[in-house]
Structure formats: structure tokens, C-alpha cells
């Protein structure tokens, strides 16, 4: 399977034919879907909370420069350092240089989609630094050399048997005859293996769910506690984050903390919420000596002022992914990109290009379920449609579609011609579909590949209506 969004159709087909994927995808509804629905029902006025979240994020996105400057000043005041990366390559170089200055050889990592986006791990490895993923799902896929298939549950696509096989292959110092049929045994094994890594790492890298400008804090939420062991034990802590993650202050964060876990897994709060504000304080036993924040643009700022701007509100909860019927059919790897499902469809054509990621915006029925569950009311189908319009205007839409639409539109603007053409078509299709259905046509291969077409009744409504009146 290829990490190339242009290969979406083939990758989707492969995913549809993968029997191992189906039980995992079934869990989207039973676990994520049911979880969110229950949490929303218990909350009270969840709509008011969504609107508050949207307003907080809109304020942040439309005051982004001001808040980033305030954030930087607050971090500096606490003895930390902020770095600004225009693109993935610059972010990688900045992170490498911080690690090299710190003399770091091993680095533990909390889950960070941005580090996935900038392809950090292979770059560190190529430069003699060993990154160790500590989120259990990320650890598993790191061992398997796979990309994540979901933004909060990276190993979502795997069965426990697949995980057990991976552990047997990777943890060679353990007794090969040990039983690994229970999930709990797998978790305890990972805990033991990674505890050593936490304790010996020279540096820790985390992402940030939010940045708070007034206090100069980065906030992460986990259920495992791995993010905390990543950043509290080593000497150096680097937060790698998108520029759009900043909000005005911790009261704004408190509101968003009500939205994020409920929308993601249905929890009222994640087990661990960690507010990290600078290097360790005077007299403290734990915490980094050096606190760095790397702010990554990588195509985000260029969405400001466009019809896609609202996508910058995203708090990366994954609700849209969990409720998307297309993701529910093909899973995450088919998208071939860091961000998948509806948020991927809204982001990737902008952050990458329409030429590269056009399929993401096109592989949607616009059912609207994503927008219905988005905690910050991002109009996701509207943004996907915008990318389709950019694609169409740029001459990048498939020629058959453009031609077909051209013919259709030509007729649709000429009522008499349309009525004539429709009558003819209705008669022809009725003849072809004599048994009631049309089984094949020399056009519309996509339809007839998997469906018949119920034959028309033979005369159009308009023709019959004129005849009656």
C-alpha cells in the first residue's frame, strides 16, 4: 500500500477487498459512534457548547498572528524557546538542530500527527537519532513500519492477533513461548518495554492539542500517560505543533476540553490532561531543563482568507472520520496521507495541492454526517466542494465528467431540446430494459459495473403532462 493520495482509487479497492479490515471498521459505529452519542445525550445543551467552540476557534484563527506573538512572549518569559518553521523541511531541520545541541541519541515521542505530517522519524533515523513512539498504537505501527490509519487510534485497523505477532517478532529478548492471547498481556508487555525507553531517553517530543497564548502553555490529552513520561523525564522537551492550535487563554482551553474527548471517544474528559508551561520550576524534581516549541506552518496560513479557512478551526478529535461512511468502508490507509476521512478531504487539497489530493475531495457523497458531528461546526462538505470547484476551474477534473456535464448542462439550459432529448432517452432505455431493468450501456461504466438501472416507464413526465392538459 502506497502513501500517495493519487493512488486513492486502487488503494480503496484493495481496502474493500481486505477481510482483516472489516471487523475493525465495524468498531467505528459500536465504539466511537455509540460513545459520542451517549456523551452528547448526557451533556445537556451540546449545541451551545459546539457554538462556543466554534467561536473560540474562529477568534483564534482570525487573530492568529497576535496570539502566536503573545504565545511566544509568554513562553520566553518562562524560559522556553519558540521556533517557527515555514514547511516540513525547515521543521525537521530545526528539531534536529535542537536535538543535536542537546547531544540526544534516543528520543521518546508522544503521539503527534504533525510529526507524522513532516515525516520526522525517518529523518531523525537518517541522522543517527533513534525515535521511539510511546503511544501504544503508534508503538505498534512503528514496529510494523506502517503509517497510522486514524488520527487518534493509529493501530485501529489491526486485530489483537496481528499485534501479538508484531510483539513476538520485535521483542526478541522475551520468552518466545509466552502466551499473548490476552489484550492485557500485550499492554503489560508494551508497558515494560517502553518504561526502559522513557527512563533512558535524552529528549522527549510531544505534540500539542492546544496552545494557550496568555500563559505560554502547551496542553496534551492522553489516556495512557505516555505523553507525560515523555516530557517529564528527559532533559529536553520539544513540542511540535501546527500554528493554528493556539487559543487565547486557559479558559478557552477549558471549554475545548469539554468538546474534544466527548467528540473523540465519548469520554467526558481524557484520563490525563497535561498543561505544560515551560521548563521545570525552581526546586522541582521533574520536568525538562529545556522547553522548545516548534510552530509549523506547512500550508496552513495559505488557507486563511479562502473558502477553506474554517478548516483551521479543527481540534483533531476524529469525530468526522468516525462517522464517515466512506472511511467506514475503506479505512485510513487508502487515503495515503497523514489526515484521512473528511478532515483529510478538507485539508489535503489545500495543504498539499488539488492535483495531488483531488480524490480526497471527490470521494464523498456529501452526506453531511461529518459536519453534523464536528465539534467546531466546520462545514466540511462545503469545503470539499470548494476544492472540486478549484479542480474544475483548473482543468484538472476528469475529462469524461467535464464532457458529460457539459452536454447535460447544454441541454438543461435549453428546455425544448431537453424535453426532446429526455423523451428520446426514456424511450430508448425502456426498449433496452425490456424486462424492467437495463443491465448495461456503452456509457456510465461506473454505474453498470456494480448495478443494474431500473428502466424508465417510457414517456417523460413532461410529455405525459402536456398530453393530459
Amino acid at each position, binding site marked *: 500500500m502506497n502513501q500517495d493520495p493519487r493512488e486513492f482509487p486502487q488503494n480503496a479497492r484493495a481496502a474493500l477487498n481486505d477481510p482483516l479490515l472489516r471487523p475493525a471498521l465495524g468498531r467505528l459505529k459500536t465504539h466511537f459512534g455509540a460513545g459520542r452519542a451517549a456523551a452528547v445525550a448526557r451533556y445537556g445543551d451540546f449545541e451551545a457548547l459546539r457554538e462556543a467552540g466554534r467561536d473560540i476557534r474562529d477568534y483564534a484563527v482570525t487573530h492568529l498572528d497576535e496570539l502566536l506573538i503573545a504565545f511566544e512572549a509568554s513562553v520566553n518569559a518562562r524560559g522556553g524557546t519558540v521556533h517557527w518553521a515555514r514547511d516540513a523541511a525547515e521543521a525537521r531541520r530545526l528539531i534536529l538542530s535542537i536535538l543535536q545541541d542537546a547531544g540526544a541519541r534516543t528520543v521518546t515521542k508522544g503521539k503527534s500527527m504533525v510529526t507524522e505530517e513532516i515525516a520526522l522519524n525517518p529523518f531523525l533515523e537518517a541522522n543517527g537519532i533513534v525515535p521511539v513512539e510511546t503511544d*501504544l498504537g503508534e508503538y505498534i505501527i512503528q514496529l510494523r513500519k506502517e503509517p497510522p490509519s486514524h488520527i487518534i487510534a493509529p493501530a485501529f485497523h489491526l486485530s489483537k492477533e496481528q*499485534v501479538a505477532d508484531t510483539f513476538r517478532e520485535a521483542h526478541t529478548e522475551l520468552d518466545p513461548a509466552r502466551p499473548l492471547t490476552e489484550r492485557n498481556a500485550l499492554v503489560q508487555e508494551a508497558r515494560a518495554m517502553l518504561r526502559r525507553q522513557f527512563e533512558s531517553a535524552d529528549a522527549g517530543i510531544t505534540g500539542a492539542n492546544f496552545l494557550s497564548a496568555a500563559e505560554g502553555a502547551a496542553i496534551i490529552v492522553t489516556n495512557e500517560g505516555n505523553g507525560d513520561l515523555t516530557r517529564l523525564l528527559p532533559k529536553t522537551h520539544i513540542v511540535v505543533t501546527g500554528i493554528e492550535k493556539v487559543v487565547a487563554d486557559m479558559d478557552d482551553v477549558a*471549554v475545548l476540553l469539554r468538546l474534544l474527548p466527548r467528540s473523540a471517544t465519548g469520554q467526558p474528559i481524557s484520563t490525563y490532561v497535561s498543561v505544560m508551561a515551560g521548563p521545570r520550576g525552581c526546586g522541582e524534581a521533574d520536568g525538562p531543563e529545556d522547553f522548545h516549541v516548534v510552530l509549523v506552518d506547512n500550508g496552513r496560513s495559505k488557507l486563511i482568507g479562502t473558502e477553506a479557512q474554517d478548516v483551521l478551526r479543527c481540534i483533531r478529535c476524529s469525530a468526522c472520520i468516525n462517522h464517515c461512511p466512506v472511511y467506514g468502508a475503506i479505512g485510513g490507509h487508502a487515503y495515503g496521507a497523514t489526515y484521512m476521512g473528511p478532515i483529510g478531504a478538507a485539508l489535503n487539497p489545500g495543504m498539499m495541492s488539488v492535483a495531488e489530493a483531488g480524490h480526497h475531495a471527490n470521494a464523498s457523497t456529501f452526506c453531511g454526517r461529518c459536519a453534523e458531528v464536528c465539534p467546531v461546526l466546520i462545514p466540511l462538505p462545503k469545503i470539499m466542494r470548494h476544492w472540486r470547484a478549484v479542480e474544475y476551474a483548473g482543468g484538472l477534473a476528469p475529462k469524461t465528467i467535464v464532457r458529460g456535464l457539459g452536454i447535460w448542462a447544454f441541454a438543461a439550459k435549453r428546455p425544448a431540446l431537453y424535453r426532446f432529448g429526455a423523451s428520446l432517452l426514456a424511450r430508448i432505455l425502456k426498449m433496452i430494459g425490456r424486462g424492467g431493468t437495463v443491465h448495461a450501456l456503452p456509457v456510465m461504466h461506473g454505474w453498470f459495473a456494480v448495478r443494474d438501472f431500473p428502466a424508465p416507464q417510457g414517456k417523460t413526465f413532461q410529455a405525459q403532462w402536456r398530453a393530459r392538459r
Partner: protein
Amino acid sequence: MNGRETILASIRARRLAQTPRPTPYRAPPTTGDLPQIFAKKLSAQYADVRMLDSMADVPAAIADILRGLNMAARIHIPPDSELASLELANVEIRREPPGAFDAAVTTAPFAIAETGTLAYPAGKGAPASWHFRPVLEIAILRASSIVAELEDVLAALPVGLPSTLNLVSGPSRTGDIEQTMELGAHGPKALAVLIVRDS
């Protein structure tokens, strides 16, 4: 232009409009017997929550928790902790950081009833990593320090945000294998909370 100037210029050049600072959001209020509400929420997240009449009951509760989990009669308490003067008969007290199979006893200066959450500002005597290292964390808190919401904790912090503020709402868990929850992923597998009523 460096990265900072380029990014800021890009943001400023493209911005079309600004939305105003929103009016502060009020969550559905958490009112009533806050310690009860807190205890109920945290118990629902697989924590062992007990109400005690006074600090004098703490040693027996600790011993009982350790016995119930089949653990050795040994706990770790941070040096310079509020609990430095705690005395337990027949339970060994260690001062170094707990290992992956040890028990730690900590004090929570605040707790949040809305979500069943312990709030730990880091500081001298309150090392942040102790909430993640051991297999069992026993948290002691006064009933009067339980507030309604996170916003109340933020407002109550004496000198603003410390270098680390940890919010803990249960033992460590993961759903990363087949979306089925297992406890004890990296942090403690067990969390016990002793709520001490004030005299």
C-alpha cells in the same frame, strides 16, 4: 525574512475579517454535594474512592488498599511532601521515585467535581512524574478542596500556572487494541482516592 516573519506576514496578508472575542461560555452548572459528585464520577472511571472522617483514618485506609491489591506493605512519598509527617505502622515508607510496580502516595491540592478530576500543580514536594511512574497511586485530598469546574481551579492557583499542571481522571488506560479498554498502559493501573472530610 526568517520563518517567523514569513509566517506572520502570510497570516496578515491573507486575513479578510476578524471575529470578536466571544462571550465567556457557561457550562451546565455542577452544584450540590461536590465531594459526592466528584466521588461518583471518579469511581465510574475505575478508581477506588473512599470518604474518610479525618487524617487519622488515612494509614489504615492505605494499608487496606495495599492488601486489597496484593501489594507489599511499602509506599513512596515525595520528600518535602505535605505528607512528610505521615506515620504508618507496618508500612515501609520510601522517599525515592517509585518504580513501575510500586505504590505512591500523593496529595491533590484541588479536585474538580464536574469531571471527577484530581488537579496537581507541580512543585517542590509534588513531583509531576509520580502520577505516572507507579502501578498504584493513592491520592489524598481534603473535601473542601473539591471545586465545581476546571475554571475554578485555574482561578484558584496562587501564582498562576506552574510549569506543569496535571489533571488526572482515573487510572491509565488504552483502547488501542481492538478499541477495547485495558488499564495500566503506561501510568498507574490502579488509582485510589482518599477524601478527608475537614473537621
